[in-house]
């Protein structure tokens, strides 16, 4: 009986098994399509502005701050265990996004690490390079500024002190050599902090050289070397050079420089085109005493200057900048030459000055404390339209004052008396 019961149970079990085997079990399988993947990203930017460029790498100077941004997909609000940032494997921050500076020079890997609810770790990295600009000593270099007599026909060595304060990066120097006409003779990048110029130079010439230093991230040194030197003369010849300008801050002048020997005989004359300043250069000169007379041909108000010098030792004597001064103010006269003038529809005055053109903006006209702006200056004549009706009704003299500043800002003030057409008895007899 019991055996029969067990057989029945087994049979029933087989039947149930055959039925369940035919069940569609697919609906109980894991469907990865229904799961939303989680991933994170990290970036850096310079401002919180939405339009600002976000990047995975950047190069900054020590102390510069950056904004570190993280993104969690599908959302930062999903359940997580922890999130944090590391710099070179050490804890950096515990925020999603933050602003922070990095002071230590070097290449840094900064990682955003996100541990989700299930303990899975997700991360993304940004790479930040911190580099200081290179150092350049702007005072100690070879040859020193203003060196004379450098041989024009042999190799010339230049050297300067440059270094990387971080002792991490390669640095290179940008060396430029120009002649006095600003023609570039050398424009090169150097790995070493020295340069040898092998070509010939012109004798008795001024040459200028500049150095800027960069590191491998193109960060430029804060300092620049700008220096000049002079080549020697052949057979003891000399030269003299200088710059001439004026006390005027805007005028264009024809400068004249005359070179005289010790007997005051003219050796050479230099006449510049119209310009604010001019550079003169006389060579070759034998050793001896000389005079230079600097003047302005078309502006005799500028007082000429005479400079004595002695040329010797195959050198280029560079004179200090010569500034010609105009200390003579303009003269203001009426057409008649009198200070008392008759009232007319247009008053006319003559402004005489030999220190360069005077613009209208430097002329002020006042009539009885009222400023008149409707005047016009043509050549040396000042035209002032005048409403004479008001003056005609009055029997007293009226004052008109002119103030003129010439090109060198020398002031002239002159008051004229406007004579009425009616007299006191005529007015009061009415």
């Amino acid at each position, binding site marked *: 009986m019991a055996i029969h019961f067990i057989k029945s149970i087994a049979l029933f079990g087989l039947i149930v098994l055959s039925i369940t085997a035919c069940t569609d079990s697919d609906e109980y399988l894991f469907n990865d399509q229904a799961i939303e993947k989680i991933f994170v990203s990290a970036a850096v930017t310079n401002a919180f502005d939405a339009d600002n460029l976000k990047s995975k790498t950047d190069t900054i100077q020590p102390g510069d701050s950056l904004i570190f941004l993280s993104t969690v997909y599908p959302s930062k609000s999903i359940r997580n265990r922890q999130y944090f940032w590391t710099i070179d494997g050490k804890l950096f921050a515990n925020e999603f996004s933050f602003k922070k500076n990095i002071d230590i020079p070097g290449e840094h890997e900064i990682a955003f690490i996100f541990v989700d609810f299930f303990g899975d770790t997700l991360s993304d990295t940004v790479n930040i390079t911190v580099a200081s600009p290179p150092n350049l000593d702007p005072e*100690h*270099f*070879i*040859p*020193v500024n*203003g*060196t*004379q*007599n*450098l041989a024009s026909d042999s190799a*010339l*060595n230049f*050297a*300067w*002190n*440059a270094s990387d304060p971080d002792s991490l990066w390669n640095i290179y120097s940008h060396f430029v050599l120009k002649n006095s006409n600003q023609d570039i003779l050398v424009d090169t990048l150097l790995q*070493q*902090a*020295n340069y*040898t110029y092998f070509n010939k130079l012109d004798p008795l010439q001024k040459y200028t050289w500049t150095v800027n230093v960069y590191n491998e991230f193109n960060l430029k040194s804060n300092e620049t070397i700008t220096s000049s030197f*002079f080549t020697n003369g052949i057979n003891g010849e000399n030269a003299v050079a200088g710059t001439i300008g004026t006390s005027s801050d805007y005028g264009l002048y024809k400068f004249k420089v005359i070179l005289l020997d010790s007997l005051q005989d003219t050796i050479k004359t230099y006449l510049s085109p119209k310009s604010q300043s001019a550079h003169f250069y006389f060579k070759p000169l034998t050793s001896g*005493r000389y005079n230079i007379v600097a003047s302005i041909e078309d502006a005799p108000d500028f007082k000429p200057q005479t400079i*004595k010098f*002695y040329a*010797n*030792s195959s*050198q280029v004597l560079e004179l200090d900048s010569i500034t010609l001064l105009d200390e003579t103010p303009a003269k203001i006269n009426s057409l008649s030459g009198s200070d008392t003038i008759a009232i007319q529809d247009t008053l006319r005055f003559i402004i005489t000055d030999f220190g360069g053109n005077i613009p209208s903006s430097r002329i002020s006209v006042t009539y009885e404390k009222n400023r008149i702006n409707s005047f016009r200056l043509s050549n040396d004549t000042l035209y002032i339209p005048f409403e004479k009706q008001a003056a005609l009704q009055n029997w007293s003299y009226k004052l008109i004052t002119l103030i003129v500043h010439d090109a060198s800002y020398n002031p002239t003030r002159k008051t004229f008396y406007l004579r009425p057409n009616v007299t006191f008895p005529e007015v009061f007899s009415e």
Partner: protein
Amino acid sequence: MAGGLFSACLDIPSPPKDTSKITGVNVFAKQFDNAIEAPIKLNSSEDAELIAEVTPSKHKKDVQYYWYNGEDILDSGATYTVPTSYMASSFISQNFIPDRLVIEDHEGNTLETSFHVIVNNPPQLLAETIPANGDTLYGNSHTPILFSWQSFDRDESNYLNNTLEIDGVRYNVGDLQEVMQSGFAMGRHTFRIFVEDSMGDQDSSATQEFFVIDTVRAEWLSIL
């Protein structure tokens, strides 16, 4: 049969000797009173010592030291002296400076380490310089003065970095050995040369002095 099994299990190895506690051996050099760790670089102008160092150091007297060059034993002892004569040429240094150290305890256990010794010839400066010591030079502050010297290195592949020190101010002039400098006031001035090779070995000149007399200014004043 059971007895055989038991006897096999009873064959316990003997306890290790003390020398088995030495965990490592290292070689470093001593020169100019400085310890030089690997890579060992020796300056050929000064005697040096190679020194064996066992870890832990309490066993240093319990072992024998054998210095090898290839398969040849050069010497024994905890130190190996490298006189300058062994560094005079690359042929000698290759054959008389060890490249391997074997230590052996009284049980015959051995431990060895290989190393490489770099012999660097230091740079040298010739004593003659321009200006020579005590020279008197004529000119003014714009007159360039030639500074010239000769530095060299027997290791021809070495880059020499020269530094010119004038009146206490150093100018790194790289591989240049001749520069023109001006800016000297009347009176006494000094200069020195330093040279360093790419291995860090150096040489320097004695401080030289020179005097500048401003004849240009004197002539100028006399004429005016």
